[in-house]
Structure formats: C-alpha cells, structure tokens
C-alpha cells in the first residue's frame, strides 16, 4: 500500500505531464480486495444473496471478527459463544452487514498513513463524509421512486470521492497542501487540485473506478457527482444515481458530516425536486442519517479518536479514556481546590455587612476561609499603619463562633516584620513563619495538623495575614494557587482598607464631636468669665456710685450723733450708721466675688486648717458649739492653697451647713479624705440638715441665689466660696437631697504642681 518511488518532484512538471504521472500512480494503487468485488456482484437481490454474503464474509477471518464484534457491541442480547456470521447477518440485516463490509474494506485499502496526525484526521473526516453520503444516497434511493436500488446508491455514495482518497494516497503531503489551500482561500477543492496536480479528484476517481472494473454507475458518480442535473451528459448509464449522489453530497455538506473540502454550494432543493422529493422528504432523509451511520462508524472505528487498528481500537480507546479520566480527575481536583479560593471570596463578600470595622472584616475573612478552604480552621490578623493594636480572628469549620482578640504591641512588631518579609520574598502565599505558628497556637490553642500556609494581606496602610491549615488531605498543603490567593488576599485587603478608611472617618467625626464639645464648654466658660467680668465692672461702678451717698449718709449721721444729746436720737443715728456700713459691705462682697484677691497658695496641713475653722466657730457667739466636729482621716494630709481663702471657703460652707441644720439639733462635720485623682485632697463639710432639691443644688452657687426666705443672708457665701475654691485650683461637688443632709466636697491640690500653680 505504499506509493511508488517518484522519479521527479511532482510540482516541477508541467500540468498535463503531471496529471499523467499522477494517473500512473493511481494505476499503481492496490486493486480492490476480492471480498469487495464479490460483494458488489451480489447486490442485486437481498433475499437470494444473504447466504452468498455470509459465505463471502466467512472467507475473511478479520472481517468475521469485525462483524461479530459489531454485533456484540450493538448489544443485541446475543451470547457471544454461539454467535455465527449467519446469525449476525440475520440479526443486523443483510443490508447493514453488506454496507458495513464494503465500508470496512474500502477504508482498509486506504488506511495507510505516515504517522501524520493531521493528515490522519483529515482522512478520517473524509471517510466520515463518504459514509454519510453513502447513507444519504441509500436513503434518497429508498425515498425517490426513480428505480434505483438503495444498495447501488450506497456503493456509489461511498465511492464518489474515491478520487480524493486516491490522490491523498499517492501524494499525501501535496494533498494536505491542497486541503489547506482550499480551506484557507475558501475555494473549490477541485480548483486547488487542478492547480497543483493538473487534474482533480473527479478525474482521478473516474480513472480508479474504471481500472477497478466497477460498474459504470459507480464510475459516473465518482466522475460527475459535482455536476448539477442539467449539466449531465445525455449518454449516462445511470443518470439518476449520479443525481442521487450529487444530492446526498450536498446534504452531507450542509449537515457538516465529515469534511471533504469546499466545493461550492449545492442546490439541494433543485436536485431534490428533479428526483421528485419534497422538503419534508429531505428532512426525513437527513434525520435518518445518524441511525444509518452509527453502526458503520462503529464497525470501521471512526467513532473513536484513534482507530487505525480496528481490532484493538476499543481497548485502545478504553485505555486512553482511563488516562484521560485520571487526568481529568486530577485537573478536577485541582480546579476544585482553586475554586475553593473563589468560594472563599464569595463567602467573605457575603459575610461583609455594611459599616464593617476592621475587626469585623478580620472575623468575616477567618469565617469565610474556614468554611471554604481550610477544614482545620483559619486565622486572620491585621495591624494598622498608625496603631499598635493587632486584630486577630480565628474560625474553625463546624464551630459556629469566631474568636476575636487584640494582641500586645510586642507581637505587632514581629508580625509586621513577617508580613513585610513575605511581601518581599514570595508574594502572597508561603509557608507560615515561626511567629505566625506561634500566633496560631496562641489564638487557636492547638497546633495545626498540617503545615500552616500563610497569605500576606498587604496594602499601603494595612498589613496583615491569613493563616490557613489545609488539613491532612494528601498533598494539599503543597498545592499552590497563586491566582486564588492573590484574589482572596486583595479582596480581604480591600475590604480591610475600606473598613479602616471608614473607621478613621468615624474617628475623625468623633474627634470633631469631642472638639465641638470642648469648644462649647470653653465658650460657656468664656461666657461665664465674661459675665464675671461684667459683674466685676458693675460692682466697681456700683461701689463708687453707692458709696458716695452712703458716705454722706454715714458722715452726716456721725456728725449728728456727736451733737445729739437725746439717747433715742443717738440710737437712731447709730442705726443709720450701722446700716450704711452693711449696705457698703454688700457692695464690697459683690466686688470681691467678681474679682477675688489673687491667692497666695502654700502647702499646709489639712488638720491645722480644719482646727482653725472649728476655733472660729467655737468663738462665734451664734455657733452651734459641740455640734461641729472634725473627722480627720489622714492627719498627715496636706493641702496647697491660700490659707486665708481656704478658711474663708470653709467658713462659708459651715455657715451654710449651720443654716441647713437650723434648730433641729443636727450636726455639722468637717472631714478630709484622699482626692479622686493623684495629688489631691478632699475637704468635706457634711451636715444632716434639711438638704436641697436637685434644682436648688444646681443654682446653689449663683450669686444672690437663696432658696431660703428673702432677707436671710445675702446669698453670696457659696458663690464666693466656689470662686475661691476655683482660683485655688479646686473643684467641688454638692451631694444633697431633701431631708438627707448635704455634703459639699471640695477637692484641692495636695501639693504644688503645674496645674495648681495659678
């Protein structure tokens, strides 16, 4: 089945010469197998020929084996041990067997190849085409009532492109070029063949079929199958067959059955009409194609990928299938692994809610990764550019909760460094560093069952990492999916960046609110200071304006007092003098309240101050005597304040307490206690008197505010005391409720420091 040695390269010869040379090659092609010749001779009658066909097949062992295998494959319910060719023929039908045998034999003749896969594929496609045309021709012959035997039509269809096969067999490389050329320039393959060989496949086919001594109908079909019906010579032996094959060829091309090179459009409807076929007939014919072709394809082995050796093709296919299957399985597993990363991203995005903070992102990532990629759990950590905190969250599959924690700054440095090294070294995915292994144990609590994998989550301002334990699945730890990791890492890092941005926006907003609050308090303080300044100004003005008339009243009264002799008159003048003095004192108090004297603070024992106050009240005629007690907790305690002013503060408070106690036999206590903040001391004036409502407490220090009845006291005592405490760096608090007594807690610095040194 090899081509004879070529004396010269074909392409070097002139057209006609070349054609002759090629035709001589064709003449040298193997003759038709005897089996085919005999089969072709018994095609006339189905009934009488079945026996002959069986006989013919049985003379060929390979053919017998092929037929039996076909029956077996077709799974017709027959047991293989008692299968005979005769039974096979009766089961498959005479026609099928005969067609199958013919196809096999023809295919066999031209199954030479030089290992060129592409050429082989083309040849296979060509045979598919031939078989398709054969089947279609058979079907058309059955449908069209033009007196053509379907068996003849099949043979004619099968061999119509024999010329191409002949040319391909003679000059395989050149013929590939023909096919390529026709395909790429999309022109009729006949033109391409003529150009290269000086003749086309129809001529070659005519020559070969003639030489093989096949029937004139076959020769005519091989020669004229591209001609439309109106172009056919009138002297043809079987013009109807030629038309049938022409139509079958057109249908096969339209349906894309196999490939035989482009030949231009075929007017299938026109030819069909010529043969008396309707469009419905054509549809029926076309749709029956698969059923007709499959057994033949199977027999020849064209249904499998690699089918040269028909006998072994099944096993070969199975073996290859096994290999492919194994490879697919592996790829599938790999893809599943890769897909897991994208599932993780999907889950992560689902887990992300609105307004997430960095810690939430951390947890969402750990949860998503644990649920998808890492059966043994996942740990996600983040540090922020300007923070020494690390957010860490871990999650395990099956465990519903995510564990979140914040680490010490110490770990931050090591982790940060790790993240940096990861980025510098291997991008996103690497085996965990030692510090990360430690982190895992610290947070998850147990060592991972397998090597930890680390994915760096690093952006411009965010560094972090994702630790995953891939479990003990074989080889999974060694798997590497950079794209998956990168996608996952950037998803998480992006979300983290957004969260951080949002957090910093929130922080800014909070700071703004805080600043606003401070500003507001500063403003109200300023307002208070301004009103204080106004009071001071007003008091100064009032002092001048009031003191002048007071001075006149007082002065004149003193003069009249000196002159008066009547005791009653003297008493009256004395009263006037006294009241003017009181009025003047009131003005002075107001002025001193608004503009107190600058304190001269010194460090002194609290005990001494409290004793001085008690002594003052002991000496006072209106004092409550032994109902004023001193409760000194820490005799060593000191206070840093102006001594005179501090005594004045306490005197005002005690005076107030005495008034609250009233005549009810209540007690007033002077106590000291450690301050709430570091260097401070509290001095407390406590009484078990009538107490105050919150409303009164609120206004207690307002100047001239008095909840008592009008005319009792001037209402400046507490205001003045508060002012003095204030300028001495003190704070105070009033704890009081009606009928539960009152405690005024004055907290003052216990020693000199920057804050108290006003």
């Amino acid at each position, binding site marked *: 089945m090899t081509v004879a040695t070529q004396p010269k390269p074909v392409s070097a010869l002139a057209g006609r010469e070349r054609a002759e040379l090629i035709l001589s090659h064709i003449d040298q092609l193997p003759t038709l197998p005897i089996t085919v010749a005999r089969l072709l001779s018994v095609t006339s009658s189905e009934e009488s020929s079945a026996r002959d066909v069986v006989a013919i097949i049985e003379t060929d062992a390979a053919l017998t084996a092929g037929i039996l295998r076909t029956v077996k494959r077709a799974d017709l319910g027959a047991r293989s041990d008692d299968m005979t060719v005769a039974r096979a023929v009766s089961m498959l039908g005479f026609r099928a067997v005969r067609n199958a045998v013919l196809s096999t034999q023809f295919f066999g003749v031209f199954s030479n190849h030089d290992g060129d896969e592409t050429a082989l594929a083309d040849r296979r496609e060509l045979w598919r085409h031939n078989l398709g045309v054969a089947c279609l021709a058979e079907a058309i012959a059955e449908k069209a009532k033009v007196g053509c035997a379907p068996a003849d039509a099949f043979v004619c269809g099968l061999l119509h492109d024999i010329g191409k096969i002949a040319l391909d067999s003679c000059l395989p490389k050149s013929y590939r070029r023909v096919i390529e050329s026709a395909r790429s320039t999309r022109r009729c393959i006949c033109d391409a063949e003529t150009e290269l060989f000086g003749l086309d496949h129809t001529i070659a086919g005519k020559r070969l079929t003639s030489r093989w001594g096949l029937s004139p109908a076959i020769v005519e079909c091989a020669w004229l199958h591209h001609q439309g019906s109106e172009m056919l010579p009138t002297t043809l032996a079987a013009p109807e067959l030629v038309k049938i094959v022409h139509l079958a060829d057109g249908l096969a091309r339209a349906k894309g059955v196999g490939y035989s090179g482009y030949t231009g459009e075929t007017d299938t409807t026109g030819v069909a009409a010529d043969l008396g076929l309707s469009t419905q007939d054509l549809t029926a014919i076309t749709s029956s194609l698969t059923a007709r072709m499959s057994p033949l394809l199977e027999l020849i082995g064209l249904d499998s990928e690699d089918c040269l050796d028909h006998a072994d093709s099944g096993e070969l296919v199975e073996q290859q299938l096994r290999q492919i299957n194994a490879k697919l399985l592996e790829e599938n597993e790999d893809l599943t692994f890769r897909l897991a990363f994208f599932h993780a991203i999907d889950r992560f995005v689902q887990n992300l809610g609105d307004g997430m903070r960095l810690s939430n992102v951390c947890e969402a990532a750990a949860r998503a990764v644990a649920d998808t990629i890492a059966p043994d759990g996942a740990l996600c950590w983040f540090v922020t550019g300007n923070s020494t905190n690390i957010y860490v969250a871990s999650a395990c599959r099956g465990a519903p909760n995510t564990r979140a924690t914040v680490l010490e700054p110490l770990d931050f440095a090591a982790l940060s460094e790790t993240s940096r090294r990861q980025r510098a070294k291997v991008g996103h995915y690497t085996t965990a560093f030692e510090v990360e292994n430690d982190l895992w144990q610290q947070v998850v609590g147990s060592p991972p069952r397998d090597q930890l994998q680390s994915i760096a989550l690093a952006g411009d301002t965010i560094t972090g990492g994702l630790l995953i334990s891939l479990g003990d699945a074989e080889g999974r730890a060694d798997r590497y999916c950079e794209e998956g990791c990168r996608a996952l890492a950037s998803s998480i890092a992006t979300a983290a960046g957004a969260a951080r941005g949002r957090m910093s926006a929130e922080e800014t907003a909070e700071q703004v609110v805080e600043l606003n609050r401070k500003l507001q308090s500063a403003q109200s303080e300023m307002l208070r200071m301004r009103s204080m300044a106004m009071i001071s100004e007003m008091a100064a003005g009032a002092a*001048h304006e009031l003191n*002048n008339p007071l001075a*006149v009243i*007082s002065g004149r009264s003193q*003069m009249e007092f000196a002159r008066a002799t009547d005791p009653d008159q003297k008493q009256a003048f004395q009263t006037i003098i006294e009241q003017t003095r009181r009025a003047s004192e009131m003005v002075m108090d107001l002025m001193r309240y608004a503009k107190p*004297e600058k304190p001269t603070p010194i460090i002194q024992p609290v005990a001494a101050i409290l004793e001085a106050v008690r002594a003052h009240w002991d000496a006072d005629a209106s004092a409550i005597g032994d109902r004023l007690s001193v409760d000194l907790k820490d005799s060593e305690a000191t206070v840093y304040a102006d001594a005179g002013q501090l005594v004045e503060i306490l005197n005002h408070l005690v005076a107030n307490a005495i008034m609250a106690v009233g005549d009810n036999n209540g007690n007033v206590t002077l106590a000291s206690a450690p301050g709430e903040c570091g260097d401070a001391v509290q001095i407390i004036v406590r009484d078990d008197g009538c107490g105050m409502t919150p409303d009164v407490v609120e206004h207690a220090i307002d100047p001239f505010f008095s909840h008592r009845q009008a005319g009792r006291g001037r209402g400046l005592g507490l205001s003045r005391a508060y002012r003095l405490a204030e300028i001495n760096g003190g704070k105070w608090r009033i704890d009081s409720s009606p009928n539960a007594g009152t405690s005024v807690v004055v907290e003052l610095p216990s020693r000199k420091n920057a804050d108290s040194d006003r």
Partner: protein
Amino acid sequence: MADVLQEKQVFTTGEVAQICKVSQQTVIRCFDSGKLNGFRVPGSRFRRIPRDALITFMKTNQIPMDQLETGKKRVLVVDDDEAIIEMFTDLLERDGRFEVKSAKTGYDAGIITEQFRPDVMLLDFKLPDINGNVVCRTIRANPNYKHMQIIIISGVADPDEVAELKAAGADDFIRKPFDINAVINRIAELVKVA
C-alpha cells in the same frame, strides 16, 4: 493787716520787712544780693517779691511764718459729689483747725491748688475729667507742692487700684463710707496740728 497779708500774692519790701520782722534796708540788701528773689516794677525802681519767693526765703532762713499764715491748715476737697463737698466743708470748718476750699473737677483742683496752696488735698479717685491718680502724679511732679499731703478718698476699694494710687504719690487712702473722726484724726496727723 495780717489778714490782708495772708491773701496777697506779691509783696513790697516794706511788707516783707513787716512779715519777717526785719528792717526794710535788710530786705533791700537781701533782694539786691539775690538772696530774696523778686522783680522791679517796669518803668520804676520799686522792688516786688512774689509769695513763692518770700516763702522760700523765709523757710531757708528759718524765719517764723506766723505773719504770713492764719494758723489754720488749708484743706482742698476735690470731689464731683456736691453732698460730699458740703459734708467735708461742714465737718472740717466745724472742727475749727482747718480752712476749706473745694473743687469739682481735676482742672479746678489744679487752679485752686495754685492759689490756695492747700496743706492737704482730699481727692476722690473718680473725677469727671481726669482720674485722681493723674491729679496726684501732676502735683507730685511739681517741687513747689512737695509739702502737700494727698489723701485719696474713694468708694472703690480694689487693692490693685489702691496700690497704684500710692505709687502715684498719694499719702493715704480712705474708703467711703468712713468714720468721720478717723478722717479728721488722719488729716491732723498728716499736717501736724494738735
């Protein structure tokens, strides 16, 4: 005679001799030698001695001033409040040891000081035109009034302001309203009257 002399601002050599209880020739000699400052009347040879120059001459030579003064201490009350002025005038004149004049503004106070040459000025801090501290400082800048005592009397008692007034040259500060006896005693103490 003595009353007239006490009012005069410019004296003849005869009057100066009478006041100083020396001969007119001695006066002329002192005038001519420059020990007693004065001027000659334009267009004549008559000598005239201003009150300032005479007082300076007498103090320098330790001549008793009895003939020039009434024996009463002069007190100038400066206050914009009429009632205050009336009260002080009444009070001090009733006492008998003081001769009292008053001014309602800083400007008046300046003019009257020039003529009246008070021994003591009772000065209100708040005046309609200028504040008491300015009056105080102006007087202290003039050496002619270095013997004058200034007592600030004010309804304002801001310790800072009091300190400032003292620095401006005030000799004392008394807050309104006041004890009248304390004020008179303080004045008497400052001008050394019994």
